[in-house]
């Protein structure tokens, strides 16, 4: 199944880069039942990483406690205008996605 792109915005101010990411993902917990009473199978992001050029700046293990379409923001030292920020996730169905943005 095709995945939807993430929205990424990165800004650098006084040597600190702030990255904001809006991930598009269902994040089903596996606890919910549909109208016919059958359990909606769990489907959630398990790993999320963010890289500045090729340097790993954030790695996280996500679970079912995270909401649908998660939003996250983080800061790291360094980075310059035009540098590449790439964010990738993997989910429990084995799907993955990577999106990129330039620091503004």
């Amino acid at each position, binding site marked *: 199944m095709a995945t939807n792109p993430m*929205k990424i*915005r990165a*800004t650098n101010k006084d040597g600190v880069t702030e990255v*904001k990411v*809006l991930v598009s993902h269902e994040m089903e917990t596996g606890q919910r039942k549909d109208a016919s009473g059958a359990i909606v199978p769990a489907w959630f992001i398990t790993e999320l990483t963010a890289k500045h050029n090729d340097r790993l700046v954030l790695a996280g293990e996500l679970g079912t406690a995270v909401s*649908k*379409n998660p*939003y996250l923001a983080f800061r790291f030292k360094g980075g310059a205008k035009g540098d590449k920020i790439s964010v990738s996730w993997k989910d429990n169905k084995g799907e993955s996605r990577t999106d990129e943005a330039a620091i503004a």
Partner: protein
Amino acid sequence: MSRFSRSILVLALAGATSAGFAFDHYKGIGRQATPAEVKAWDIDVRPDFKGLPKGSGTVDRGQEVFEEKCASCHGTFGESNEVFTPLIGGTTKDDIKTGHVKGLSSGDLPQRTTFTKVATISTIFDYIQRAMPWTAPKSMKPDDTYAVLAYMLNLAEIVPADFTLSDKNIAEVQKLMPNRHGMTTDHGMWPGASAAKGGIGNGGKPDVKNTACMKNCKTEVRIGSGLPDYARDAHGNLFDQNRSFGPVRGIKTGGAAAAPVVATANAGSGPLDLATRSGCMACHGVNNKIVGPGYNEVQARYKDQPDAAARLALKVKNGGQGVWGSVPMPPNGEMKDADINTLVAWILSGAR
């Protein structure tokens, strides 16, 4: 005829005379508004785009403006649920095709957003132009309003990232609005004849059917459940803990001591007037928290710090976040330094 009834007749005549004055456009009072004055007030943008100012804006420019003026409350992607309900989200590609937001009826939406509800793009344009940003309404130029709207449309995946929205193509975008067929006027709230007869209402027919009970009716209304007395004060006065805008209100619990605090400051006094004029009172109360802290809380925190006035003045000017929770205070660069210093001194002296 008795004298009594004659005096009533006289009173009735007097009433008719004064009513005659009233219909005479209050002769001697005021004057007609000039065309320029009417034009300044007449800023509404209608669904048929009557009143839409000329201009255009790109998604990229919109992102800059949004980040500067809107993101502190609405979130960078319009996703924030912190201060207001989200602007963006809950709409699908399919909705854009059908013009009905499926999530509204299927119950899949965790929460409604602006773009799941609004049927006409003119309404969003009008609202931004009229009321945004909260601290400085009517301050945005038409081009910036177009740009912000283009950015929001891009976030909602209605238009591509290289889109330029203008008065020329806004009608095309209207045809892509996810909930464009979601509005009904088939109820008694709208005036005029039914849509079939060329009006916009349904001829005034109510859409509720309240049938009067004619037999075996209940004689007494009894409230089935309520907050038990022993629990009323368990968490303080619930009324004070709810935000003061929006549909949700807490019940007033506790006795007289817990009654909501009323601002005691004199309404005509200078600093309070200034605070009201500058938009501070939308978020801060004198004696109570609204979105931001009450002035009494600010005073209590900073009263023993000698450099507080200078630091607070800087915060008012540049905005801040984190000291009182995650809801940010927007920057107030348009205020005069002297006004900011007056306000800070007023707040630190107890806001009286």
